């Protein structure tokens, strides 16, 4: 769906902001561009909808080279969400959401219906919020409007630039949950830029960790955790390593390393798709049982930690 082919970008002749980047994002996949400030992740994102043009290399969206398309037409088919929302202060919420459909010359009824549908899905009842101006909304509400605006014309591709970065931690977590649960997003091809490791692991199907304009490692969360490509990847994740491991490892991944015992009755039963993090939360009082392929195993804290250690050794 989206393909970058040896893309390089210079801002000045001395330093490459983006250095020879290639990757592909499949339809319906969510790729997270992760890294510290100045690593080139936002620059990479902005080249996809031609807010910037690459110095060399090619970018394809839906099989077409973006350089061959008119920027305005290209951008109308790509949803774009910014950290500071960039809502139009002189437009009402519904007018903001209807911006791209209006550019695409949808008729008014269609725009209105679409706007109301989206507002309902994002827990902004149209009756209350349609005619309100952005400055009258809370930060979280503004961000939802920003998301609704990006989704309005139902674009197949979404680019999100630190969409939750300006929110306080609590709001951020709750909006992230809503974001994950939003059915509108299931079929979308999404590239999300963030510097928040936790967010990257929670939302990304694959993570592309960048530093100094280069890709350090690109793969699923577990690959970055357990098979780091270099020292940078290792050190980058170290501060939150335990939590990340617990969250990304599922009980079914550990299945071979869990021992079978006699199982007392009345224990809570967890599905094998649960993460170790969830299992730990559940077993604070008493051990739990897990069912996988009709086999049942009992686990407690020690058993879980042993299994993780064995998993990492293999």
């Amino acid at each position, binding site marked *: 769906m989206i393909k970058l082919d040896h893309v390089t970008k210079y801002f000045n002749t001395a330093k490459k902001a983006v250095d020879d980047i290639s990757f592909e994002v499949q339809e319906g996949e969510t790729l997270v561009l992760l890294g510290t400030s100045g690593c080139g992740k936002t620059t990479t994102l902005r080249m996809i909808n031609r807010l910037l043009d690459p110095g060399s290399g090619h970018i394809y969206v839906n099989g077409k080279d973006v350089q061959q398309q008119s920027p305005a037409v290209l951008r109308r088919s790509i949803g*774009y969400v910014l950290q500071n929302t960039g809502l*139009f202060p*002189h437009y009402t919420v519904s007018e903001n959401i209807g*911006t*791209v459909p209006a550019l695409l010359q949808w008729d008014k009824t269609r725009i209105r219906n679409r706007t109301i549908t989206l507002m309902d899905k994002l827990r902004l009842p149209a009756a209350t919020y349609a005619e309100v101006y952005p400055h009258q909304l809370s930060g979280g509400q503004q961000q939802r409007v920003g998301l609704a605006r990006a989704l309005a014309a139902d674009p197949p591709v979404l*680019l999100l630039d630190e969409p939750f970065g300006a929110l306080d931690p609590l709001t951020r977590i709750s909006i992230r949950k809503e974001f994950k649960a939003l059915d509108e997003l299931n079929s979308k091809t999404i590239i999300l830029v963030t510097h928040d490791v936790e967010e990257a692991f929670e939302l990304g199907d694959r993570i592309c960790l960048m530093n100094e304009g280069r890709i350090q490692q690109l793969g699923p969360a577990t690959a970055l955790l357990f098979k780091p490509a270099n020292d940078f990847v290792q050190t980058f994740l170290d501060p939150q390593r335990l939590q990340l491991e617990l969250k990304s490892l599922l009980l079914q991944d550990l299945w071979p390393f869990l021992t079978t015992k006699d199982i007392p009755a009345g224990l809570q039963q967890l599905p094998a798709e649960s993460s170790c993090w969830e299992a730990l939360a559940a077993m604070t009082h008493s051990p739990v049982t897990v069912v996988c392929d009709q086999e049942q195993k009992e686990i407690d804290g020690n058993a879980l930690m042993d299994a993780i250690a064995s998993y990492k050794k293999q």
Partner: protein
Amino acid sequence: MDAPETFFDFVQQQSGKLLEQTLTHTGLTFISVLLAVAIGVPLGIFITRRKKMAALVLGFAGVMQTIPSIALLGFMIPLLGIGPKPAIVALFLYALLPIIRNTYTGINGVDNNVIEAATGMGLSRQQLLFKVQLPLALPVILAGIRTATVINVGVATLAAYIAAGGLGEFIFGGIALNNTNMMLAGAIPAALLAILFDWLLSLLQHINIRRSGKALYALPVIFLVLSSFYLIPDTYSSKMLAGFTPEFMGRKDGYLGLKSVYGLHIRTLVISDMIMYKAAYEKKLDVISGSSTDGRVKAFDLVVLEDDKHIFPPYYAAPIVRDETLEKYPELEPALNLLSGTINDSIMTELNYRVDYLKQNPEKVAKDFLVAAKLWKPASNGSKGTIRIGSKIFGDGYILANMYKMLIEGYTDLSAMTKTGLGGTKIVFDALTNDQIDMYPEYTGTGLLVILQTPQPVVDSIISDSKKVYDYVSMGFEKQFQVKWLKPIGFNNTYALMMRRSAATRLHINSISAFTNYVNHQ
């Protein structure tokens, strides 16, 4: 004698003229602001896209703003003549800076995130401009238009100096004639216009632009209607065009006398004496109300028409000094009287010519003359006291003030400082009576008519005798103001009607009667 005229009497009597001036003033203001918006807003938008041009364009507009208004009007004369055209262009240049700068600042001030979001969503540059940048910058742009409008209401008063009309005619006429009512009749409506327009535009600034989009289209229409108030007055068929100063227009020994005594009826424009001579020389005007000793009479080869029916009173110059000062420093009077009888009309014209036209420093001209007349002595650097010498903004005044300074410093132990350029008669005389200056050179005729406001029968009985006029004003000033007239200097800087020498010769005109005859039988 009539009871003194009140302000309301004046307004009532002159209501027709006042209305005409107010409309002209409004028209001048809005036509120039409209032009400035038409040019300034697109230019402001342009420089947000070509940042390199921004410094250049803003710099140019800024320089325009720093040129003194009257000078800018003066620069326009050779290019555009006199009348509304140069006035509108000058006002347009004044209005340009606030409009360009506010457009530029307003658009640059739009939140970058909003621009980025708009671009990222696929708005074209034009859509970005009209849907996002302009609506969001509009309050700032309107603030610029407001500033420009208020500035222009003020500057438009100066349009009267170059024959473009407006409320400046009353203001400058009032200052020149020491007629407070006339001055206020111009100044108060001008101030009210400024307040009114500022208020109206402020209302506009705060309405919701997008909700009242249609109302916004009315704005240019309103501007156009207001602009159309400016109708170029052209009611006389005579080919001859006269340019008179605001002062001359309202004086009995000026245009009023020309009308009543000579029966002259001619198309007139109100114009500043600063540019009048040049305008006559450049054939923008055919006849002007000059002063007989002005250096520019010589410089621009003009010829004075003989006042064969004696309507212009004698204007002999003499220093007038506060009695208080003379009592305190008795040595002052003999020193000042040294100049008496030394400068005749042709010498004064020559001196003025050197200052006005050859652009020599008045101080140097004054010294050269004193040296030649063997009156110059080096300054004694005395510290007994300081004499403050004032002068009006004419060449005569500058030169005489400098001569008196040198005489005081050379012949007494006093020091002297000059405060030249004190505007017209009213300003300089008020400065004298309010003890801001100690002395200045004044003309007998001005004393008689403007300051003492002598009743007409008395004027008529003494006007043809310069000695009687001098005695009358000496007595009057002593009695009313405790100010003393010292001995006359010698020259008579009277009003004179003058025209180009070539035209006068061609038409065989040498006197005002002959001129009137020519105009009335054209």
